[in-house]
């Protein structure tokens, strides 16, 4: 049993450790394109775009040569080809990227224990307490280069936000280590778009408040931001601009949600038609949940308008569910309540908040009525 003095000491050391949090973000440079270039060295030095070929395809990755023409990720391929007509379009090879991604993640985990994979081509690592965090990350980059031939950019900072922005600052082959203050100074004049979480719509709304730069936002009145964005997002936006972030690196990779979504080949408008499109997604999702033995307490939907503005709505229930009737009913209600008012490009359904997978499956049964 610990004495009061011990507890204080524990508390203090805990705080000190907290103050010294060191987080790294590693981002592979032009990942899909780089994988393709390894297989097809003859394309090296050319503008290459990895993209599907359908009329609605978007650019997943562009080589740095193509980026010089203004081509960027998520841009419609048709537009990319107008900007850069000589670009070589390579169809994406998902399985190959996944294999390569797994190799890279293993290499990172070899040098740092606390890793959260944030995508196929990016990961956060918690380096807190390491004696030489920079050196560890340089070894990671070196190993990735020699083992896979891929290039990576690394950002290191006191939290995820600084690390993420720093890794992006000097791509490709970037390696940037910033304190919170240094980040604020370095990006003071950058557009608010620099900050993850500020999209084009948010930027527009910020500009209406005469907020253009990261610095403007960091000094903006909380009241004004709250009036425009609400009591959660308003203050949150300002803390982003101050590079404050205490989100932990989540090393637990156990599945906590499952979703199904579909991008329509032609935008869908009208609640009736959307409901129809939703039914097969619900069916597919619930079948997968059953197969994996998963049940979740949160049912959510995702809607992306034709202008890529994306919204999600979710409801958390008293009991975890996986059955088609309940998931379908709640998803439909969320859709009805959301009332999409524009053509919809993508529709998704999600069940999250899985109950512990290791526990026995226990299900509150319901009376059999609608």
């Amino acid at each position, binding site marked *: 049993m610990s004495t009061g003095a011990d507890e204080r000491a524990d508390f203090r050391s805990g705080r000190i450790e907290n103050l010294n949090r060191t987080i790294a973000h590693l981002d592979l440079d032009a990942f899909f394109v780089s994988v393709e270039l390894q297989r097809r060295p003859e394309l090296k030095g050319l503008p290459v775009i990895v993209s599907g070929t359908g009329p609605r395809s978007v650019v997943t990755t562009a080589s740095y040569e193509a980026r010089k023409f203004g081509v960027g990720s998520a841009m419609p391929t048709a537009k990319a080809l107008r900007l850069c007509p000589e670009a070589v379009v390579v169809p994406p090879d998902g399985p190959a990227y996944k294999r390569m991604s797994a190799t890279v993640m293993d290499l990172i985990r070899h040098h740092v224990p606390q890793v959260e994979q944030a995508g196929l081509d990016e990961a956060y690592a918690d380096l807190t307490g390491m004696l030489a965090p920079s050196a560890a990350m340089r070894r990671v980059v070196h190993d990735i280069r020699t083992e896979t031939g891929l290039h990576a950019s690394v950002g290191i900072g006191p939290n995820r936000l600084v690390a993420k922005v720093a890794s992006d600052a000097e791509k490709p082959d970037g390696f940037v280590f910033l304190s919170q203050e240094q980040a604020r100074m370095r990006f003071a004049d950058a557009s608010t778009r620099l900050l993850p979480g500020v999209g084009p719509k948010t930027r527009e709304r910020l500009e209406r408040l005469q907020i253009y730069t990261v610095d403007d936002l960091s000094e903006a009145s909380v009241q004004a931001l709250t009036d425009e964005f609400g009591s959660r997002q308003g203050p949150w936006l300002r803390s982003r601009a101050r590079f404050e972030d205490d989100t932990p690196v989540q090393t637990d990779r156990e599945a906590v949600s499952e979703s199904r979504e579909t991008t329509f080949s032609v935008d869908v408008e009208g609640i009736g038609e959307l409901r129809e499109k939703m039914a097969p997604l619900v069916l597919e999702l619930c079948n997968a949940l059953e197969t994996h033995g998963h049940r979740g307490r949160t049912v959510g939907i995702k809607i992306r308008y034709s202008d890529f503005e994306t919204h999600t709505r979710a409801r958390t229930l008293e009991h975890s569910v996986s059955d088609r009737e309940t998931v379908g009913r709640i998803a439909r209600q969320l859709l009805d309540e959301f009332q999409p008012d524009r053509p919809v490009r993508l529709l998704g359904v999600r069940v999250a908040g899985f109950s512990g997978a290791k526990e026995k499956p226990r299900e*509150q049964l319901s009376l059999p009525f609608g």
Partner: protein
Amino acid sequence: MSSTSEKGTIGLKIERDLLLEGLQSATRIASSKTSITALSGVQLAAGPEGIELRATDLELSLRLPLAGEVTSPGEVVLPARLFTDVVRALPAGQVTLKARASQQDVEITSGSATFDLKTLRAEDFPTLPQSSGDSVVVLPAEVLDATIRRVERAASTDPSRPVLTGVLVQAEAGTLRMVATDSYRLSVKETKLETPLTNGFEANVPARALQEAVRLAKGTKGDPAADGEEALAKGSVRIAVQENQIVFDLDGTVLASRLIDGQFPKYKELIPDEFDHELKFNSAELSDVVRRISLLAQRTKPLTLSFEKGSLTISAETPDIGEARESIPINYDGELLEIGFNPDYLRDGIESAGDEEIVLKLLTANRPGLIESGSEGGFLYLIMPIRLGS
């Protein structure tokens, strides 16, 4: 009264205790979350017919007459919570209220204390339903009370299933019946009426409206000597059901509620005709065991009821927290039966039965169980199990 009253003016004298009692009821009805500020207020109206306190959240509305002296007729809307807090803080005795139109406030004086409260926009306060003469059923408040108490816990609180947030009320001939379900359990309570009804009604009523009606009825100080045949016995409730609303008239206090749209589930066919096991319990004893063992059924973990020859073992287990079990002797003579229940649902059922003895009827582990009151009858509680993993 309201049509002729001038908005923004008023003058009256009233006993502090009376006003506070009225305000406490009205504040419960006033909206707590609304974009229309006036709905978070109470309306005070004074006219030749007397003084009335009004509040609504657009679903439920209340008109409450208050005895007092009108010095100047009119209507004002005051912030409910603040007004109540102010009146509560005043000493007993007479309170004087006087609107000051130019200042848009109301001066409240009692002894040497003076408060000037700014009024809310009276224009935004809706006209509230009146008591009406259509298809009126008169029920003793205690019957209403005894019935709603037995079913209210089974009503759903899930806003995504609005139909289930109501209580189905059926009043016909000699019976008042209420039914509530959240789809995991279902309660039915029938109460015999001493005086059979000539009119009847059936409506899906928000549980909150029924609870509020009972609460108001208990506080009503009826005057049976008034108005001859029309007079109501103390604590009687006149109920009128109109198209989409139900109006409770409690000796001049009028509570109205929107009815819930949609078809209430056909519940009768859900109740199995026959059960394999029928077990009698002392309610208090069983309830105590359930309450104790439930301490270790956390995070929606079930209570497991294991029936074997001569005994029932109730157990619970929460990983990383601990486990508990307790056995009681019972008259069970079947195969081993293990059935899981949500601890709260089981306890609600035992307690709602409101009887010294209850009967628990079971089929199999994944079929509904039924709790009945032992002697009194008229109460059913159907409870769905939690499927126990193998």
